[in-house]
C-alpha cells in the first residue's frame, strides 16, 4: 500500500492484517489498494478470492455480500473483465470492494457460493450476462435469459439490438429485409 494513501483508519488495519496474513503464503497477497470517493477497493488475483473472502468473513466480520457483478473492458483482453464484489460488515458498518481481473481466454473465477449463499444467484447472473464461469458453483445455469439463449448480452461486443429507421427512400428495401428475417426465424 503506498504511503500517501490515507484510508479510513480501521480499514487500514484490516488491509494491513490481510497483507500480513497472506504474505506468508507462497503467492503472497500483493493486492492493489485504491480509494475513490471514500470507497476502498482491493484488486486481487482470481486464485485468492476464496481465501481472502473467507478471511474477511471469519476474521474481520464482513458477513454480508451486498453485491456481486462484473464489468467488461472489451476490446482490452487481458484482463477483459473485472468481477466486482461488495462486502459489508454489520458490526463495523464498513464496506469494502474487491475487484478480480479475469482474462478473455479463460474467464473463470472460483465461486464464493460456499461462503455466502447469496452469491448463488448473483454468480448465475454474471455467468448469464458476461459468460464468466464460476468454478465449483453447484448450479450454474442461465437465470434471466432463456435457457437456450446464445451469447452473453452484457458483453461489450454483444450488439444492442435495434430497429433500423425506415425513411421514404429506403422503406421498401428494409421492409423486404424484415420480412425475410421474419420467415427465417419462423
Amino acid at each position: 500500500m503506498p504511503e500517501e494513501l490515507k484510508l479510513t483508519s480501521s480499514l487500514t488495519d484490516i488491509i494491513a492484517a490481510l497483507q500480513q496474513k497472506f504474505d506468508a503464503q507462497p503467492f503472497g497477497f500483493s493486492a492493489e489498494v485504491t480509494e475513490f470517493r471514500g470507497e476502498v477497493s482491493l484488486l486481487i488475483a482470481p486464485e485468492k478470492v476464496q481465501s481472502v473472502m473467507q478471511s474477511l468473513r471469519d476474521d474481520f466480520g464482513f458477513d454480508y455480500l451486498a453485491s456481486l457483478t462484473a464489468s467488461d473492458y472489451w476490446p482490452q483482453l487481458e484482463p477483459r473483465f473485472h468481477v466486482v464484489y461488495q462486502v459489508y460488515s454489520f458490526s463495523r458498518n464498513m464496506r469494502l470492494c474487491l475487484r478480480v481481473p479475469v482474462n478473455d481466454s479463460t474467464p473463470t473465477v472460483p465461486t464464493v457460493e460456499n461462503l455466502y449463499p447469496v452469491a448463488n444467484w448473483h454468480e448465475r447472473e454474471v455467468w448469464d450476462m458476461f459468460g464468466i464461469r464460476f468454478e465449483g458453483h453447484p448450479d450454474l445455469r442461465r437465470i434471466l435469459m432463456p435457457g437456450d439463449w446464445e451469447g452473453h448480452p452484457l458483453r461489450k461486443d454483444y450488439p444492442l439490438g435495434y430497429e433500423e429507421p425506415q425513411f421514404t427512400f429506403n422503406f421498401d428495401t428494409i421492409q423486404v429485409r424484415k420480412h425475410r428475417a421474419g420467415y427465417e426465424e419462423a
Partner: protein
Amino acid sequence: MANLMEINLDELKNLVSERALEGETVLLNMGPQHPSTHGVLRLLLELEGETVLNCNPDIGFLHTGIEKNMEAKTYEKAEVMTDRMDYLNTVGNNLAYCLAIEKLAELDVPPRAQGVRVILTELQRIASHLVWLGTHALDLAAMSVFLYCFREREMIMDILEMVSGQRMMTTYIRPGGLWRDTPVEFEDAVRQFLRIFPARIDQYETLLSKNPIFMDRTRNIGVISAKEAIAWGMSGPSLRGSGVAHDLRRASPYSGYEQYEFDIPTETSGDVYGRYLVRMEEMRQSLRIVQQALDRLPFGPVRSNNRKYVPPPRSELGTSMEAVIHHFKLWTEGFSLPKGAVYLPVESPRGELGCYLESDGGPKPHRVHFRTPSFVHLQVLPKLSKGHLVADLVGIIGSVDIVLGDADR
C-alpha cells in the same frame, strides 16, 4: 413456429429430488401468470400432498435489458429507465441512480432538494407498503384491506402527479437536484395526508394484527434466523423482521437522513407475522420523517448551480451566452463523469437497493448494475417455504415483498 421446448429430465435433476423423477411426488408449475406471485414469476414446486418439498423460482420473464440499454444512453436519458425497474418505488430508484452520479461527480445538492427528496421517497415507501399490505392480505383472503390500502395509496399517487405530472414513472429526482420546484399546493396535500393517515394505519391494524385467522396464517410460517438472513443477503424489513436492527438510512445516511429522528422497528420472530409488524411500524416511522422534513423544508433553489452537470434555468437562456452553450452541450452530448466506479446503497421499501455505477470518462455509463432487493429475496424463497403448505407459500411470497420488475430488470 418454434417447437415447444421439451423438458429434459436431466435439467430437472438438479432442481427436484429423486422421488419426483420416479413420480412419487407431484411437480407443479405455479405461475408465470398467477395472481399471488406478484408479477410474472414461475415457481416449480415439488409437492407431497399439499406440502412443499422443493421450490424453484424461475425468473427472467420481465427481463428487459435495462442495464444493457443504459450503457447506450447518456446519463440523463438512462435515468428514465430506472423508474421502470421497481415500479412501486420509482422515486427511490431515481434517488439511488442520482446519488451514484452525484457521488461520482462530487455534485452538491441544495438543502431544499434534499428535503423534497426525503419527503417523496418516504411517501413512496408508504405507497409501496400499502400495495404490499393490500396484496398480502388479499393473498391471505382478507379482501377489504386491499380496497382501503389502494384508497390511501391514491392520495400519494396524487401528490406524485402534482409534483411531477406522472403518477408512477416520475423521473422527478434528477442529478444535482430535482426536475423543478414543487407546486404551491404540495405542502397542503402532504399535510392533509399526514393528518388522515395515522388513523388509517390503526384501521388496518384492527383488521389484521389481532385477527385470529390472519395470525394463524402468518405466525411461525417462513421462519428465518438473523444469522441465516444475513448469509442469504436479506435486507430491509425482511431482515429487521429477523431481529437485525439495520437500516441504511441510519447506517450510511444519504440526503440528510441523519437530521431526522426515527426508530428502526424490529421483530425477533423472523416469520411472516414479524415482517408484517415491521412494515406496519415502518409506515408510522415514515410519517414521522415526512412530518419533520416538511416542517424543516427550507426555501431556496432545487438544483445545483454546477452548470457542467445541471442545465441552466430557462430564464437564463435569453440573457447569457454561457447558459446557451451549457444548455446545448448538456442536451446534445450530455455530461461526462470522471473515470471511476462507485457503489451506492439506499434503503428502498424492500431493502438494500444498490447502484453500482462505473464511468469510463465518457458521456454514457460504462456499466450500471442495480443490486435489487427483490432478486436477492426471491433466492431465499426455497429456504423459507420448505415444509410449508402451498397456501402458506402464497403468504411467504407476499411477506418478502417482491416486485418482479425489480428482480428481472
